[in-house]
C-alpha cells in the first residue's frame, strides 16, 4: 500500500478559505500539519524538519513571507503549491505583465517608469485617464485613477516622496471602460500533474471602477465559455500554473484582457456561488504534487 503523503500548510491566519482547506484535508484523511508563518524559522544548513513534507501549500497572507518561504523550500527540493517562480510572476504586477506579454496573452497596455518626470511622459503617450498601481499590492489598495495632468503630477510626487522605494517603480496601465464588472476565473493544474483547466468563474460587480470583492464588489456566477477558458488557461500557463485566480476585463472592442493573476487567492465568494468545493480541489492538486514527488 502506498504511504500517505505528508502535507504542510503554511498560513498566517485562518480565513474561511483556510477552514475549507483544513476541512478538506481532514475529510480526505490526509496527514497534514498547520504551519503558522509567524512561528516558523528556517536554518539553511538544517532542512531536516522541512524534508518530512512531500509538499507544502503556501497560504501566507504576506506576499513577502510566502515568497521567501517558497524560495527556501524550492531550493531544498521540496515541492510547493505554488512554486516560488509562480509567486514571483504573480505577486509583482509588472512581472505578471511581462510574462503575459511574452506569451502573447491579451492584456491592457502597461507602461513602466522610474521617475515622476518619465512617468508623466509615459502617461501622456496613453492619454487620460490612466491607472497607477503599486507593483506589489492586493485587495485594490493604493490604486489611483488619474483623470488629468494635475492629478498625475500630484500622485506621482506623493508616491515618490511618501512611498517606499518600490512606489517609485511607476506601473501605469491604460484605463478601460469596462462594464461594471470584471471576471475572476479559478485555474488549477500544471505540467507536474496533468492538464491545467479553468474550473469556475464569477463576475465581480461594482459601480466603482475598482471591482475587488475586498472593496465591496458582489459576486455573480459567470458561465465559462471556450474563449474565456482558453485565455485563462493560457494566462495560467504563462506564469507557470498551479492554483491561480485569473482576473479578466471585458474590453468593449478588444474582448477579454487578462488584468492580474493571484497565486494565493481567496475564494470565499466564488465557492458558494459555484457550488464547487474549491478548497477540496486545491487539496486534491496538492496531493497529486506530493505523490508525484514521492515516485
Amino acid at each position, binding site marked *: 500500500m502506498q504511504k500517505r503523503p505528508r502535507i504542510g500548510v503554511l498560513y498566517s491566519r485562518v480565513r474561511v478559505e483556510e477552514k475549507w482547506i483544513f476541512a478538506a484535508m481532514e475529510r480526505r484523511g490526509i496527514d497534514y500539519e498547520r504551519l503558522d508563518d509567524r512561528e516558523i524559522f528556517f536554518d539553511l544548513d538544517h532542512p531536516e524538519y522541512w524534508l518530512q513534507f512531500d509538499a507544502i501549500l503556501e497560504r501566507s497572507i504576506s*506576499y513577502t513571507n510566502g515568497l521567501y518561504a517558497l524560495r527556501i523550500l524550492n531550493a531544498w527540493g521540496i515541492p510547493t503549491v505554488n512554486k516560488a517562480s509562480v509567486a514571483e510572476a504573480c505577486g509583482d504586477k509588472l512581472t505578471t505583465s511581462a510574462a503575459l506579454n511574452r506569451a502573447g496573452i491579451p492584456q491592457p497596455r502597461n507602461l513602466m517608469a522610474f521617475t515622476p518626470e518619465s512617468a508623466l511622459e509615459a502617461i501622456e503617450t496613453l492619454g487620460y485617464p490612466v491607472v497607477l498601481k503599486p507593483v506589489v*499590492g492586493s485587495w485594490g489598495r493604493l490604486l489611483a485613477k488619474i483623470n488629468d495632468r494635475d492629478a498625475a503630477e500630484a500622485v506621482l510626487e506623493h508616491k515618490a516622496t511618501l512611498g517606499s522605494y518600490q512606489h517609485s517603480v511607476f506601473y501605469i496601465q491604460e484605463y478601460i471602460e469596462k462594464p461594471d464588472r470584471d471576471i475572476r476565473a479559478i485555474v488549477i493544474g500544471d505540467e507536474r500533474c496533468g492538464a491545467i483547466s479553468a474550473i469556475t468563474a464569477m463576475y465581480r460587480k461594482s459601480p466603482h471602477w475598482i471591482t475587488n470583492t475586498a472593496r465591496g464588489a458582489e459576486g455573480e456566477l459567470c458561465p465559462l465559455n471556450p474563449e474565456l477558458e482558453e485565455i485563462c488557461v493560457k494566462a495560467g500557463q504563462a506564469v507557470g500554473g498551479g492554483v491561480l485566480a485569473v482576473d479578466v476585463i471585458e474590453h468593449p472592442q478588444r474582448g477579454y484582457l487578462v488584468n492580474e493573476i493571484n497565486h494565493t487567492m481567496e475564494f470565499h465568494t466564488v465557492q458558494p456561488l459555484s457550488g464547487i468545493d474549491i478548497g477540496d480541489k486545491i487539496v486534491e492538486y496538492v496531493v497529486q504534487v506530493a505523490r508525484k514527488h514521492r515516485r
Partner: protein
Amino acid sequence: MNTVECPECSAEISLDASVEAGEIIVCPECGVDLEVISLAPLAVELAPMEEEDWGE
C-alpha cells in the same frame, strides 16, 4: 460557554463551537478584528493590522 471579552471594548462575545486557533472574528459591538490565539483556554487578542504586502 464559549465566551471571551473584547480587549478593545470589553463586550462579551460568544464564539461558535467550531472556532479555530488563528481564526479572525469581528467584535459585534465595536467592529474590531480579533484573532483567536488559543482554544484552551479560549482567548483572543487584537488582530495584526493589515500590511502593505498582504493580499492574494
